[in-house]
């Protein structure tokens, strides 16, 4: 078993096609508020775990570090995240970039979705726009998207 074999299993999964690529020009990075959005199904222990086919999202507080991986797929390595959350959710790295003035600030709330979705219509039409609005409401300018 090797990473290459696991990747080969999913390499040809049909991906959604967007006829138009939306493009937002950000403010300068040194002035921007940055959030992380991950598809790793992270959540806090006191929040609901992700159900199979869960197209919703969980809010991750930047003030905490008790992130738990609730992903249903067995098809990725989890030990990297187990020893260092930044392998998937680089919150400490963003704090360091903010302290150096590279980015303006780190969002107080970040989001996690479940990446193992075969039907993305609910994400495209419902939970995706809702998550974006929640980030915009707290002044987020730039989103870093991390998969597993």
């Amino acid at each position, binding site marked *: *078993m090797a*990473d*290459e074999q*696991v990747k080969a*299993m*999913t390499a040809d*999964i049909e*991906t*959604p096609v*967007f006829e138009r*690529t*939306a*493009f*937002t020009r*950000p403010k300068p990075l040194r002035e921007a508020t940055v959030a992380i*959005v991950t*598809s790793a199904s992270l959540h806090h222990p006191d929040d609901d775990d992700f159900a199979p086919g869960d197209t919703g999202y969980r809010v991750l507080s930047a003030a905490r*570090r*008790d992130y*738990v*991986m*609730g992903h*249903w*797929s*067995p*098809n990725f*390595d*989890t*030990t*990297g*995240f*187990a*020893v*260092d959350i*930044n*392998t*998937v959710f*680089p919150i*400490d*790295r963003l704090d*360091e*970039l903010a302290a150096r003035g590279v980015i303006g600030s780190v969002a107080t709330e970040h989001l996690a*979705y479940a990446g193992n979705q075969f039907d993305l219509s609910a*994400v*495209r039409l419902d939970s*995706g*726009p809702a*998550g*974006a*609005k929640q*980030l*915009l409401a707290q002044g987020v*300018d*730039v*989103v*870093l*998207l*991390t*998969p*597993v």
Partner: protein
Amino acid sequence: MSTLAHVFEAEGLATIALGSQRNQIANTAPPRGLWCDFPLGRPLGRPGDAEFQHRVLADAFALLDAGGPVFETFEESIEDDGTEIMACPLPPRHDPDAHPAVDEARGLRPAYDRAVARYGNRVGAGRVVDADHIVEAIEAFVRVADGTHWKEAAIPGIPARVAQDVRGYYETAALGLADHVPGAWAGTRWFFDHTEGGNTVLAAREAMRVAEVKHAVWFYMAPGDR
């Protein structure tokens, strides 16, 4: 992930999508995509290596300078050649009357607790079966492997989720036994190829496959290449 990039961008957020699967990120074509040829589960590359993670982030944020959609490749790859296996000493048999997997799981508990104390319980047991009941989960899989129908074996939850808890228990215990950060999949290979617990999960899965249980019920008990 790249789908969310399109959605967020349309709502007025600037996004950068990292991707470990080249086909997936290239075909979905997010507004700003950085393909990082890293093992699945490690989108920032190297756990515990802040300098490396900052290099990834620097390349990612540099995409914000582009005037239109852009797709780049991170300059360095991290390869998993499928050979690294965590070298973890397994506990000696303690109770000769117990199933070897049950005896083994009990013996790993101190290592599991050490790892949780050090790192927290981020991927270990607890989705449906906590560490105190992992032995009961293994005993249920032993019954399935021995021919009991999975619905009558008292599996304490959806089989795939229970199997994840058993794997998480073992891989977390392995972190308590190892003296280094493992390479990607090294803990998974150790679990499935070198432990009685992993062997039991695979045996139960195979018994369910042979019994023509619905594919989705047994398939996700282990990585799909198994």
